[in-house]
């Protein structure tokens, strides 16, 4: 057992002795390295280690939490004493309880969360990668400057125990890199870029592939026009589908449901999307960015069908929201894991071809989402589609729609899903949305 897991268990023993009915302790440790390159020089280099402990204490169904980056045992004990005192001042809540013990019955190493390359990859190699993507990025004649490239790595150890007998730990790694560029001239400038991240070094693309993607995105909108206000079909590129799913995940989150802050309240087992829509939350996908063996309460991860053939099958629940809704935790007390739309049968090319007059959406700006009503309204950038072909870029417009109507209006689902983000999906076509422009 790791030293930190032992410390967590020791703190639980202390808390229970001092009067906690139930207690959970987690202690996480990590190191980070990050280098930022601009104009081929190192602009910023950060290297550090950090540690943090957090506790949840329940005294007779009354809850208090605490956390600290100061791990001196005296500090932790004082925090626990305080938390027990504080818990007594809150209200008893019959739904407050730690999860019943549920074992992690799979081999954590199969999840591919930890890559030994973290210790083998030297700072020089990371610097060289970042320099290379910037060099390629700047080599395109349409690019007028680099806002910087970076390469980062992280190494974390997670340890969680509770008074119901759960005790688990795992390690993970992260590799991330990207470059940000600017194109255009005068007051008509465009900035964008691209980044990738993954648990394993091998998931990062080559320098050429990453830099080309950054160039493509940065130059895509050059010479963009504003268009007239109209209602048209909108194609979401995979990244935009991911962003839309991020909004959906906040609407299927258990706390949004019991607080009635979601348009999907009482919609379980009803049809909310078109037949070709299948959405999952899968915490067990080997090597994927959102994968974890268990959530922040020690509930083992699983694959949850959220939408199956258009029907809402499950919310994403933690122990508390599950008990509130008379359901079981889905292992999502810390939010979604790998939340994705499954591939459909269309190629992205076929989807574009199917549109006579519409928007191919590549970028949005702004918050503009309201889970309570499902309303979405964002600044939008993309390419205009005419007669099945991508034509000129459009900018400074907005798109708006209601998420339920959008899900029901998904007419085509692409076959180009990649798990390069924890929330992701393939190219999709939404039948109609309002575009605001001139």
């Amino acid at each position, binding site marked *: 057992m790791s030293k930190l897991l032992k410390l967590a268990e020791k703190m639980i023993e202390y808390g229970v002795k001092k009067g906690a009915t139930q207690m959970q302790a987690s202690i996480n440790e990590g190191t980070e390295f990050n280098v930022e390159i601009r104009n081929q020089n190192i602009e*910023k280099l950060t290297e550090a280690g*950090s540690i943090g402990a957090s506790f949840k204490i329940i005294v007779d169904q009354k809850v208090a939490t*605490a956390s600290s980056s100061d791990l001196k045992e005296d500090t932790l004990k004082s925090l626990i004493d305080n938390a027990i005192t*504080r818990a007594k001042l809150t209200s008893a809540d019959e739904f407050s309880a730690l999860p019943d013990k549920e074992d992690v019955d799979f081999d954590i190493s199969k999840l591919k969360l930890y890559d030994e390359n973290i210790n083998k990859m030297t700072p020089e190699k990371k610097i060289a990668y970042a320099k290379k993507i910037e060099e390629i990025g700047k080599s395109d004649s349409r690019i007028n400057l680099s806002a910087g490239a970076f390469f*980062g790595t992280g190494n974390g150890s997670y340890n969680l125990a509770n008074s119901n007998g759960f005790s688990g730990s795992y390690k993970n790694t992260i590799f991330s890199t990207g470059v940000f560029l600017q194109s255009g001239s005068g007051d008509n400038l465009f900035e964008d870029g691209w980044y990738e991240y993954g648990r394993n070094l091998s998931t990062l693309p080559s320098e050429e592939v990453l830099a080309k993607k950054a160039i493509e995105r940065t130059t895509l909108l050059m010479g963009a026009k504003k268009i007239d206000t109209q209602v048209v079909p909108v194609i979401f590129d995979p990244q935009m589908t991911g962003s839309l799913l991020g909004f959906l995940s906040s609407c299927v989150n258990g706390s949004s449901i019991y*607080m009635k802050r979601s348009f999907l309240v009482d919609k379980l087992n009803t049809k909310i999307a078109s037949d070709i829509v299948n959405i999952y939350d899968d915490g067990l996908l080997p090597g994927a960015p959102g994968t974890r063996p268990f959530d922040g309460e020690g509930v083992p991860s699983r694959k949850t069908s959220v939408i199956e053939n258009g029907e809402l099958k499950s919310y994403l629940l933690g122990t508390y929201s599950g008990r509130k809704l008379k359901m079981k935790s889905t292992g999502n007390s810390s939010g979604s894991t790998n939340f994705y739309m499954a591939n459909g049968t269309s190629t992205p090319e076929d989807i574009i071809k199917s549109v006579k007059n519409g928007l191919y959406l590549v970028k949005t700006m702004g918050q503009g989402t309201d889970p309570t009503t499902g*309303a979405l309204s964002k600044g939008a950038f993309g390419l205009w589609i005419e007669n099945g072909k991508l034509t000129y870029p459009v900018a400074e417009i907005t798109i*708006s729609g209601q998420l339920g109507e959008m899900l029901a209006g998904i007419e085509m689902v692409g076959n180009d899903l990649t798990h390069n983000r924890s929330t992701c999906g393939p190219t999709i076509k939404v039948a109609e949305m309002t575009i605001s*422009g001139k």
Partner: protein
Amino acid sequence: MSDKTRRTFLKQCGAGMGAVMASGLWMNGMFMGCSPQDGDSFFENLFQISKEEMQKLLLVALSKGGEFSELYFEYSINNSVRMEEDIIKSSSESISLGVGVRVIKGEQTGYGYTNDLSFEKIKHAALTAAAIANTDAKLKIADLNVLTPKLQTYDMKNSFSDKHLEEKITMVKEAYQGAKDHDPKIAKVSAALADEIQYITIANSDGLLISDVRPQVRLMVSATASDKGTLSTAFANNGGRVGTDFYKNNDHPKDIGIRAAKEALILLEAEDAPAGEMPVVLHKDQSGVMIHEAVGHPLEADGVWKGTTIMKDKLNEMVANPLVTIYDDATIAGYRGSLNIDDEGIETKNVPLIEKGKLVGFLNDKLSAKILKHKENGHGRRQSYAHPPIPRMNNTVLAGGETDPQEIISSVEKGFYAVSYQGGQVSGTGKFTFSVNLGYLIENGKITKPLKNATLIGTNVQILKEINMIGNDMGYFLGTCGKEGQSVPVTCGTPTMKISRMTVGGKA
């Protein structure tokens, strides 16, 4: 990992509702009354470090030839208490302790940090940061000279960090009931009080040694209204670097709750906003978010020397309508974005940005000021010891004008009146959006029906010229600003104003 191109302003910060948490200055009041005026004993008690040790560490940080080194010690305690569904659901207390070591050489920054404040661990972080340089060591630095901040912009009387949880619970209940009891249609309410006390000590190789104690509090209410199957949610909050008196004299907890409830009720009746270009009137209370995005971020000096901001070559040019004067003033008493000294130890002041339409200044940190050969103006901020400082806003304000707000509304034949926001976002190239929660339609100079779900989009160089009427009133808005993965508390202020044309994204 941060998307470097992204700058956001969020009305509701993730850490706000429930993430963090709650008790008095803890450990038997060990830090009670701990003040920067105490001189050496402040950091000796808090961080168990002496002036001599800091001097040694600053020199270690320069052992590879860096030009400037700095230590940033931080101890902060965050408390929160949350009420939902008629009960106090939980309280929380969070301690953050650490030190960051920064070394600058030319335009390069090396950074290391640690939670362990033993001399050896800090020395390790100092050596890590030192490695940004690779020439000969500096052998001597200026002697550290303890200074105390001259300003006191925080209200330290009746500080929340001295208050017992019971007292905070009473306030949260008042705010909660304010919303819940306002109307039977209010179905769900959540209310939370989050308070923080942050102790910092900054020492650098120029001989500066200064400390500050910063309070921060925020009382937040979200109300969800329900009527005939329609749901709506609205949010209200208030706070700042203030004590409990603020909620007695300036804004009562109950009134914060009522505001959230009222907006949720109006939203029940609201229709979708129209789509297309039209005149836009911005209500005084929250529209400062536009100044924050459209003006503030593009005038942060790191974008100037990196060449990423659209405003980089426009100093001393007319960039806005001559009616427009904008400044960032971190010294306003008690405001959420106020600071006595910035996170590099520089005394804050009122920094003019745009005077009668002319661009007159940028917000800088030490590094930007050095590279651009500008005077330092105290806008280097960081989220915590784990982050190097970067140029940031504090309280960004568009100065009040002379027009009666009613006259501004009367001048619009058909347009959009933006009242409350979820937040905003801007790119370095000046394109910005703000997301409107509640607005109204203006028809024939009169406010008619409520509207919801709109995004306003524009480019800052255009919008600044399109501001053509400015009210003689003033409102302030609290938020949390995100840049390069770092969040800091800010305020922004505006009077009522009119933008002659802007794209409103609603439903066609």
